[in-house]
């Protein structure tokens, strides 16, 4: 099958017109065609959350989205949440709280947390646990990640 589709998608604020194969996932497009390798590939079945990106404000597993489906959408990856070297409060909180170890779950974890905090700035500990339940981490035991997200929420609410 050599059919391709032309899609128009805003990636990290930049409009791109790309020709994609019908079976190409958003994850593969980002990682292997656009070089946005901060998005990780951990299971390809939507069970680990490492490939989480934000599409039109919602966190999704990019391994379960076809690239062609993102036509007309706005996609945010880990490369798109800091500006000019200025870290997003979540990124800073992950560093400060020791929420990063091997780092493989980190981009997906941060983006899942970001979509939660964007949606609900007052998210409490229970909300955070629920929102991050689809992001597996084998290094940290999640404790410092939960703390980091709560702290970033506070910073974003201006409560620091």
């Amino acid at each position, binding site marked *: 099958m050599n059919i391709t589709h032309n899609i128009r998608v805003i990636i990290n604020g930049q409009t791109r017109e790309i020709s994609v194969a019908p079976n190409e996932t958003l994850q593969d497009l980002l990682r292997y065609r656009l070089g946005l390798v901060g998005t990780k590939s951990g299971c390809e079945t*939507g069970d680990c959350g490492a490939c989480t990106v934000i599409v039109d404000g919602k966190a999704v*597993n990019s391994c379960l989205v*076809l690239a062609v*489906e993102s036509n007309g959408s706005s996609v945010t990856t880990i490369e798109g949440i800091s500006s000019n070297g200025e870290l997003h409060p979540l990124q800073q909180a992950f560093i400060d709280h020791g929420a990063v170890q091997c780092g493989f779950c980190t981009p997906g974890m941060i983006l*899942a947390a970001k979509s939660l905090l964007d949606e609900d700035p007052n998210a409490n500990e229970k909300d955070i646990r629920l*929102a*991050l*339940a689809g992001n597996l981490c084998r290094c940290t035991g999640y404790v410092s990640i939960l703390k980091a997200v709560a702290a970033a929420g506070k910073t974003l609410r201006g409560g620091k």
Partner: protein
Amino acid sequence: MSLMEKLDGGVSLLAGGTDLLVAMKDGRLRHRTLVDIKHISNLGAIRPEDAGLCLGAAVNTRTIARSPLVKERFPLLSQALAVLGSMQIGNRATIGGNLANASPAADSAPALLALEASVKLVGPQGERLVPLENFFSGPGKTVLERELLTEIHVPSAPDQGRGVFYKLGPRGAPEDICIVSVAVFAVPDASKRIWTDVRIALGAVAPTPIRARNAEKALLGQLIEGRTVEDAARLAAEKDARPISDIRGSASYRRAMVKILVARALEQLSER
């Protein structure tokens, strides 16, 4: 609808893709034509319908779970959909897809069965409304015949009715595929002494999600008390459930859990 006439074994309908893409990747589905149905108009809305609801088949489950309208009218449905999958899955998985995929463990099914929802199927020959209970025909099988599931209708329920959903997963995380799930919607009489309407639905204990009719019968018109609850829970486990053993649990554990969870749900609903 001309498209529907072309539907055959080589075409799959793509909604949220959270099940379909996994099947494509592990080789269960290959070289198919995919038709993306997410953007068909009218499939994407949640509408009040009298005192009930009409859910567009392409609405994602997390949107439904968080909808104030759904929370207000059918907290049971909201509760069930909140644990249908991870946040990322819930943001993609559609209510129509969860039903049409026809997993015996589909998390949306027991609540909708207990709420006596119907599904609207549209095909070249016209449209029909099928009670959800008659929609599933086996694991991964439905009565769909070159048709599209377009809407889910949840009828109004008596004001005094209340519902409970339990999902027993291996971990307790929302993305778990359940070992057993139970949804109960029950209506007491005005004095709160007698069950006037009880609907019990079970997931992952039969080839399809099912209503526990034997258990329901044992409760109808009976006193709300421990003995009737116990009888009904036993019937649900012994007469209604037909579980198999798989990697998540044995048939006997599933049966035992049906009894425990149905009893718990009824007890919770008996509290005045």
